[in-house]
């Protein structure tokens, strides 16, 4: 079953003369363990696609299904529960709470979902440990580097039983080494079965994905074919001169 499915999703902002078709008839399916990148220029609808996929916004038309369940038929409470339990978000500017330590930030969604604080904290520490941040668990966000902050944000997005990771330009202003580390973590999460959608205008980030879809003016206009192994790159004739 697809973890995420967008069926003919459209989103219209404004009306009459000021109407903007942010998304038009978008179909997208993401299976467990798949990493899909959505590439497109500014204003192509990338972020709108992500907020609708994450149930943070409702489509004007069409349906969003998370693990087969249509969001339009869920109550507000059920959708909020789904966001806390099944969906992890990573934003460009990290969105960590400055008054909480790294461990508390990671444990927060579990605590909000009703998990006892001690268990939530233990799960948070495990998630940080998985990302090589165990020693930073007690630090506050402003005591961490940009790369560490984003790793904490990813730990928060995958902690617990999250099935879907949604990331909006997750490497933001990080340098290329830290950006690669972030994408490697997203990629590793997918290997463990998490489905991920990463929106970006950066081809280097997108190239970590199994599939890249191209968005233009709110429509998916193209996508990559399944990627062959890299072997052919290493035996290209004519490179030995």
């Amino acid at each position, binding site marked *: 079953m697809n973890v995420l499915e967008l069926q003919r999703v459209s989103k219209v902002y404004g009306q009459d003369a000021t109407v903007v078709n942010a998304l038009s008839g978008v179909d997208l399916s993401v299976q467990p363990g798949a990493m899909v990148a959505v590439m497109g220029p500014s204003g192509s609808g990338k972020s709108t696609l992500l907020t609708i996929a994450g149930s943070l916004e409702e489509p004007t038309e069409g349906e969003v299904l998370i693990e087969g369940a249509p969001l339009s038929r869920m109550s507000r409470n059920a959708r909020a529960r789904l966001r806390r339990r099944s969906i992890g978000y990573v934003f460009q500017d990290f969105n960590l709470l400055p008054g909480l330590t790294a461990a508390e930030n990671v444990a927060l969604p579990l605590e909000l979902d009703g998990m006892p604080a001690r268990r939530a904290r233990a799960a948070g520490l495990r998630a940080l440990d998985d990302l090589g941040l165990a020693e930073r668990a007690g630090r506050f966000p402003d005591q961490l580097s940009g790369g560490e902050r984003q790793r904490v944000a990813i730990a928060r997005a995958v902690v617990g039983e999250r099935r879907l990771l949604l990331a909006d330009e997750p490497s933001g202003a990080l340098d290329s080494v830290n950006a690669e580390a972030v994408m490697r973590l997203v990629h590793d999460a997918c290997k463990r079965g998490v489905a991920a959608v990463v929106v970006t205008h*950066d081809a280097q980030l997108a190239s970590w994905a199994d599939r890249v879809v191209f968005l233009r003016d709110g429509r998916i206009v193209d996508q990559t074919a399944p*990627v062959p192994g890299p072997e052919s790159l290493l035996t290209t004739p004519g490179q*030995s001169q």
Partner: protein
Amino acid sequence: MSVRHALLALLSEGPKYGLQLREEFEARTGEVWPLNVGQVYTTLQRLERDGLVESDGSEEGPQKGFRITAGGQEELAGWLRTPPDQTSPPRDELVMKVLVALRVPGVEVREVIQVHRRYLVQLMQQWTRLKEDEAEFDLGLALVVDAELFRLDAVIRWLDATDGRLKRAAADGGSARQPVPPPMPNLRRRQGVRR
């Protein structure tokens, strides 16, 4: 890629045999430049002829040893610091295709751009696969893969910028499907594009 200078670089570490040079060349370049034995020996013979290496005088074969001469050291130091020729646009074929597409009736240039963008992203995906196994990702290979990814990324950025310019030009021109193509620039004269 200069096999000649790569061999000089390997010999600058100390004397080596022909076969050993081939294996080390491939390992140091992340194994992305396969080299046949014949190439190694032909190059070594020329280096010896030019006085840049000297052999131990034993018979031709995998066990024949070579060492770099003072002249070879000087040649290598000079080569490392000589910038490769980057004066002509290296991606002229793609640039020309897009410029030509602007002038061909019935061709949607942005669709042409997307075909190339998709191909380049797929190529980048293939290169990125090499990074997945961090444990097997040695420094030489990492540098080669990074170089390819940055190069391909730059081409995609150019396509994105072109796409943006076309969109703006179309918007400025009202309902025109495509902007009026500019006259073909004389790139050969102005920028030295190679044929």
